[in-house]
């Protein structure tokens, strides 16, 4: 058994924001056309964590969401299903049942989402409940207040504890990058999360603005790449919130392709946390196949 030495998290890896933005804008110039575009649209579709995280969520809405995940667009039955449905813990059982017999995962937010302002025991209980209800994946939030205090060991220990509570469920760690503000913080939080056992690192809850941005995603992808080079472990990435258009989704795929390589271009290692992205992808897919845009009303709003 190898003993993994934890890096000193108080050391800050310098990141030049101007340079990161420049790299992103260069990658955004990649021209994705024809077959390449169609394949990318379908790939993006298969990577969506179809999400509803509202206080007014009902069983009926969850069932609709699951149906959409199974058959995103009935006239094109050959399209891939979405990757997962992401709900609150109390809705996990409903989703799990609705997705029975499919490959679609049930994901649940936990740990006092979205603020994370609760005692560890409550967060663990929240996580365990979601797992017991049948969640395949847990999306936890880190304690941003403690992080900004410089209490990095607290963050590490908390993630490690939640990971343990997850059991066999996959753990996605939400950094809430909109509250971390600097790219150097994003990098540091990414490193802590990965060393503490995250299977995925995720940008945002979707409840704080700004949510996912490409510069933040690039920094996290670079952290994943460096972690892989150090440890040989592949960690997944999930930008979430604010990605609404197919074009942006393709730009994210380019970021992944040119930073991490093709091995990460699967729903096992890359996800979009989004709800309205699905329909834009579908519209673009139909446009690619038929040459004409369909009206938005032809696509179900689930």
């Amino acid at each position, binding site marked *: 058994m190898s003993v993994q030495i934890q890096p000193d998290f108080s050391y800050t*890896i*310098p*990141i*030049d924001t*101007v*340079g*990161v933005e*420049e*790299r992103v804008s260069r990658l955004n*110039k*990649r*021209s*994705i*056309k*024809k*077959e*390449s*575009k169609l*394949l*990318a649209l*379908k*790939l993006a579709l*298969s990577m969506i964590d179809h999400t509803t995280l509202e206080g007014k969520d009902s069983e009926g809405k969850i069932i609709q969401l699951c*149906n959409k995940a*199974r*058959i995103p667009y*009935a*006239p*094109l*039955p*050959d*399209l*891939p*299903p979405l990757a997962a449905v992401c709900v609150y813990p109390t809705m996990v059982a409903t989703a799990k049942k609705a997705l029975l*017999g*499919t*490959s*679609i995962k049930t994901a649940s937010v936990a740990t006092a989402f979205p603020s994370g302002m609760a005692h560890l025991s409550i967060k663990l209980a929240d996580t365990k409940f979601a797992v017991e209800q049948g969640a395949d994946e847990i999306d936890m939030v880190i304690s941003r207040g403690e992080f900004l205090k410089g209490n990095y060991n607290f963050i590490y220990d908390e993630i490690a504890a939640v990971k343990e509570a997850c059991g066999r469920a996959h753990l996605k760690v939400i950094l809430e990058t909109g509250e971390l503000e600097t790219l150097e913080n994003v990098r540091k939080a990414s490193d802590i999360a990965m060393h503490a056992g995250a299977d995925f690192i995720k940008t945002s809850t979707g409840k704080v603005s700004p949510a996912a941005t490409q510069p933040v995603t690039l920094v996290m992808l*670079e952290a994943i790449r460096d972690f892989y*080079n150090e440890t040989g472990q592949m960690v997944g990435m999930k930008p979430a919130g604010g990605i609404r258009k197919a074009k942006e989704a393709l730009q994210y*795929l380019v970021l992944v*392709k*040119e930073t991490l390589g*093709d091995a990460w*271009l*699967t729903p096992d290692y890359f996800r979009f946390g989004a709800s309205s992205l699905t329909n834009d992808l579908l519209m673009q897919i*139909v446009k690619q*196949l*038929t040459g004409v845009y*369909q009206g938005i009303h*032809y696509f179900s709003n689930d």
Partner: protein
Amino acid sequence: MADKLKETMPSNDVNGTPKPSSPNADTAEQITMLWEYSPAPESSEHISISDKYHHFIGGEWVHPEKGRYMTTINPATENKLAEFAEGTSEDVKRAVKVARKAYEKSWSNLSGKERGKYIFRLARMIQEKARELAIIESMDGGKPIRESRDVDVPLAAAHFFYYAGWADKLGYAFPGRKADPLGVCGQIIPWNFPLLMLAWKIAPALATGNTVVLKPAETTPLTALKFAEICMDAGLPDGVVNIVTGAGQTGAAIVNHPDVDKIAFTGSTEIGKIIQKSIAGTGKKFTLELGGKGPLIIFEDAPIDQAVEGIINAIFFNQGHVCCAGSRLLVQEGISEKLIKKLKDRMETLIIGDPLDKNTDIGAINSRSQYERIMKYLETGKNEGAEMYQTSGSLPENGYFCRPTLFTGVSQSNRIVQEEIFGPVLTIQTFRTPDEAIEKANNTPYGLASGIWTDKGSKIFKTGQKIRSGVMWANTYNKFDPTAPFGGYKESGLGREGGLHGLYPYVNLTPV
């Protein structure tokens, strides 16, 4: 797939019939195909290139006196693009005579405001024809369309806009002094940024009231000839801009013509020295923008991923055909291993191929002779005992393509460290202390440009003060702006182009 869609989506009922709600997970197609970018070539169909170009003298196309023509090819395909006139001293004489007449009769008598109007018009017309110019630049020179579209052409237009603004404000540029034009300027430009170098030369010359005889490089004359068309369309007075094409002898004829008042040359140090010798004692003013061997200093506190990106921009921009390219990497020992690994990984993602493809990062080497020169240097490097690393991707069958190349295990005395290769070739050395970095950075005959990467602002200034180069970029590289003066120390040249400084070489100043 498309056929299947038509079956399920009859045209009169685009939404199709509802499908049964059985789970389709088993039947859904699995995406196992590797996602690659499809070719995305910029179309060259609407581009007009004539079969044969003559000199542009006195506002019209003039056949060369001796009737000789040369050929320009597309270096990415080796196909012929066009023929162009080979200028002789007779052609140059004619051009200078016309330029002199235009200077005396029209251009120098115009008010600055009127000159400015013409130059603004040229700038706007470059913008209007940006797409065509970019495509021709890429076809003629082999540079990726991404660069000619996003860098060369917009910057060329920006130079004209900038100097157009100075035309009626020379009194403010030189307070208390009167700025008179020189007369006829002979300008010789290189093949690495054909249109942009034309703009660097012509814009300040016209703004200050001079007329111009310009010779583009023999491998890339087309955008200069397209610019001649723009001058005609803009109604620029005849003879203000004259373009004589040809090779070295044509250039020599311009340099040695007695009625030329100023020489502006961008090119190799070797030719620069010849020019300096031949005009010694003639009283001609001159600016020389020559070679370089730019050092890139990476300190261990640098933002490493952005530094890697900076290195990529510094040496692989325009296939390394950049006089200010950062071709010598000096990296602090502690991070060298990590940095080189990251650099190699990043180099693997560079897309080499058709310059007209919008996704191409590295295009074709400009000409066969340059290709051979680079190959010779690669041999030299290996013979000198350096370790060569090249990226693994395949190269197009035709055309002159060179893989991005690194040399490690080099010493300061190696030819590949001392001499300008002008290709996508980077040498890597390490250093331990800032003083060692500065010493190595300065230890070449060149001093055009340099780069520094560190997270610490004070280190940038402390090191920067001791580096003898005309430009130093901090945490970035190859950034250009018409307002910034550009030029070299030591054998990298004399005089500055760009900015307010770029006006000086084109004026005689007298106290008012």
